């Protein structure tokens, strides 16, 4: 038996979520009294691979195959399912991000394994195997029993702390034969934004709503974000109006994020907006209306005009950064 965890890398480095996933898998392995095998697909050097051992991975399977350079969910699912079989995995841990959503359900069908998606805590119970998952877009949580022998859990990003439990990991290189008929996805063109902090990875997010009044009012918000090392986000009407790019839209129909700190400026706090941000550890609201619902979700609030509060806040941040 083992717990298998699928890690993700970017430009040869593991994404932070990979360490969260391994920490989480290690937590489950402790409950099951078993070991953790991590799978990495893509070009990652040995030094980087061994970092997974810091979070408890006993074995690291390093898959290097040029055919897997492009994410093809069918091919990835077949490779991971095969490894899962060899490692006799009883639990498979995958991120609940776009990649995880693409491959987890396919692995589920291949292995006849039930899926608990968007989990944020260790299983509540092993028998029956019960997980804690987000439902109703964050306004409720469910205790979900998974009845199959093999279970797949997709972990919500930023929801599980990194826990260092160093072990000496063994690295095994694998070059699996990929059935060519499974490789159907052809990527014609890639457009990557560079240099910006990814919204879904950010520890701090500064977000603006319709209360910002005009796209011309964004510079102080962006300046505050830069000073805090934060990503920028917005509410739906703001991206619908074209004031900000669509990638920034958070909420029910946009990105779902869980930063340590979410600063909402001129956002009313509609349920559909909260659906995307309610898992943030701390929420700060800046709003001119003291009765705005966002204050019910926030731990800290400032009632005031954003255009007056932001410059003062920026000065105060500069002061403490000195």
């Amino acid at each position, binding site marked *: 038996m083992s717990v298998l965890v699928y890690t993700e890398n970017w430009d040869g480095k593991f994404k932070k979520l990979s360490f969260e996933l391994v920490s989480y898998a290690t937590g489950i392995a402790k409950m099951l009294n078993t070991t953790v095998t991590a799978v990495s697909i893509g070009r990652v050097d040995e030094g980087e691979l061994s970092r997974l051992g810091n979070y408890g991975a006993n074995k690291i399977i390093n898959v290097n195959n040029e055919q897997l350079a492009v994410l093809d969910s069918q091919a990835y699912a077949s490779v991971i399912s095969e490894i899962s079989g060899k490692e006799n995995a009883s639990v498979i841990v995958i991120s609940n991000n776009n990649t995880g959503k693409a491959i987890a359900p396919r692995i589920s069908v291949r292995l006849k394994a039930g899926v608990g998606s968007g989990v944020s805590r260790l299983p509540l119970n092993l028998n029956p195997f019960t997980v804690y998952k987000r439902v109703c877009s964050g306004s409720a949580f469910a205790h979900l029993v998974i009845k199959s022998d093999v279970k797949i859990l997709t972990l919500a990003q930023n929801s599980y702390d990194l826990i260092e439990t160093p072990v000496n990991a063994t690295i095994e290189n694998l070059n699996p034969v990929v059935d060519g008929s499974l490789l159907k996805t052809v990527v014609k*063109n890639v457009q990557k934004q560079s240099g910006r902090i990814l919204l879904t990875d950010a520890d*701090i997010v500064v977000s603006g709503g319709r209360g910002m009044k005009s796209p011309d009012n964004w510079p102080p918000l962006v300046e505050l974000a830069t000073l805090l090392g934060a990503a920028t986000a917005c509410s739906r009407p703001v991206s619908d109006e074209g004031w900000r790019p669509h990638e920034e839209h958070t909420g029910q129909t946009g990105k779902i994020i869980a930063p340590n700190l979410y600063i909402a400026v001129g956002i009313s706090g509609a349920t559909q907006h909260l659906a995307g941000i309610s898992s943030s550890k701390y929420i700060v609201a800046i709003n001119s209306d003291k009765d705005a619902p966002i204050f019910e979700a926030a731990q800290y609030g400032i009632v005031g005009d954003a255009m007056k509060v932001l410059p003062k806040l920026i000065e*105060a941040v500069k002061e403490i950064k000195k």
Partner: protein
Amino acid sequence: MKILVCISNVPDTTTKIKFAEGNTSIDTAGIQWVINPWDELSLTRALELKDDVTSGIKSVTVIHVGTAASEPTIRKALAIGADDAIRVNAISSDAWFVAAQIAEVVKKEQFELIMCGIESSDYNGSIVGGMISEFLGIPSVSAVSDIKIENGQPVLIREIDGGKEVVNVPVPFVAIVQKGIAKEPRIAAMRGIMMARSKPVKLIEPVAVDPMTQVVEFEKPAPRAACKFVDADNPAQLLDLLQNEAKVI
């Protein structure tokens, strides 16, 4: 080419969710049911494609796994413009069950493009689309924010971390769509509502499949502590709280 759009029936997104039967089920009293927001956008895009004569799309069918209680949602999809509908007559116990039923239908009736929303707003599973494609052994592309048909071939935009990819994939395949797929959901016009009454809804009995998962209890998130207000003229105090109390900056 024929499109199949999978639709889920969910509580209106502004519903204040309550539970019943000792927190083992969602209290459906007074709930307004709607087409899952993603599926509404996916249907909109499917209809836009059909409207464009160069796309070669012949028809748009919606499919729903659910009981007769979700008829109004199916009629709404027909009123918006779907040509016909299929309802698999069963309680949609879990994602596995639903995906298995839809795959079974696709095996018998040919569809080139199967569209699913990235998640349903009630169970937030994000798994039905991927499962359908694996049951059928056909490709799937996830996080799709645009679909075009160029010279009879699908051209998709797939969202990746910090960017986008233009992707080609042969039919038949499953597109799992998200934000961007259509700008605004299409609204049913009076004529559409009238026409929907006479559009065919095919009823199919489910195949025997055991669900893999079951919700045994619901709970509300722990209430957050009351908001601490800081004076607008004293943002330094906010930073002090963030540094020393919350320890997040």
